[in-house]
């Protein structure tokens, strides 16, 4: 005849077996920043921000966020805008300007980049 104590022991054995596993590591991970430079390319994933960025001499720039107002100093190499409704003013873009997002307003004063508008509603102005 099984006693209450033995049944509780069964329960405790199972509890010990399962508790050895980790919790929700992904949920507890520290969030990484929305802005960072990787391989001579600036990556910006902010939303609703007004800021000045600096490409220096030839850094690439990837804009992944939306509804930002950016002034970009220096000469950018390749630029990719994947977000939407950004207003971005560049001193200069040297190599490529690719706009894949929607309803962005982009101006660049200097450079003769290969411009590709792959989104919709974008306004790209040179000068």
């Amino acid at each position, binding site marked *: 005849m099984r006693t209450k104590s033995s049944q509780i022991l069964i329960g405790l054995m199972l509890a010990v077996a399962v508790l050895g596993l980790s919790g929700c590591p992904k*949920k507890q991970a520290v969030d990484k920043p929305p802005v960072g430079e990787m391989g001579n390319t600036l990556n910006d994933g902010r939303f609703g921000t007004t800021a000045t960025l600096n490409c220096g001499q030839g850094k690439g720039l990837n804009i992944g966020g939306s509804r930002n107002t950016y002034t970009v100093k220096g000469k950018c190499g390749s630029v990719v805008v994947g977000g939407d409704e950004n207003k971005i003013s560049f001193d200069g873009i040297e190599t490529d300007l690719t706009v894949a997002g929607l309803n962005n307003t982009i101006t660049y004063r200097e450079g003769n980049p290969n411009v590709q508008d792959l989104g919709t509603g974008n306004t790209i102005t040179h000068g």
Partner: protein
Amino acid sequence: MMSRLALGMVAAVGLYIGTFGLPMSGPCVGVAGAAPSPTCSSDLRECLRLSAKTGIYGARYVTAEDVAKCVEAFNACIHGGASTGGNTAPPPTTSPGGGRKGLPQHFAIDDTSGIVGDCRLNGDAMSCTQSWGSPPDWVQTWSGTVTGTLSGLTMTGNQKVHVLGDAGQGCTLEENYSGSVTYVFSLDGTVKITAGPVHRESTFSCAEPTSGTSEGGESQGTWSPIN
């Protein structure tokens, strides 16, 4: 009564194991399903949308790392031979994504708990057979299946898990879990897995059966084509 309560408590804890191997840490933010995206640019927008997080003050953002990954996949897409307009066939690729649209017909999903899914696509119908290579010692057999519908890069479906285990003292435990599951695939070979709510039915050879429902949880895994 006390024994039943004890076993019920244990069975609830045992959800940690049996519930698809996902930690039962409460609700995490899920991602809604995505619409089909036929172009490189729409894939990029989708990648960024799926990568967006909410900070502690409610501000939305994408990490710089995720921006870089999404743009890398985008550049591979547009430089792989497809037209910039995207109205051409997807280019070949050697990325883990297996193709501009991401998912091949036969692929594996590996979540961080060691559960591996062997998945096949038939149109938009997806099915996976799951196995757990290193379950806890008390688990004798563990098997799972996932069936669902793929829309864009998101699969919404159901998961079922069957567990047989040693409850000690010569007793056995059999559990059946079922619940909803969502896979959100990214072009960089990662997949976000959200499961729940999960319903459990437990049968003990030495005690009365129990049942319960839990919220589920979220984890991150990887996917890769199987040739």
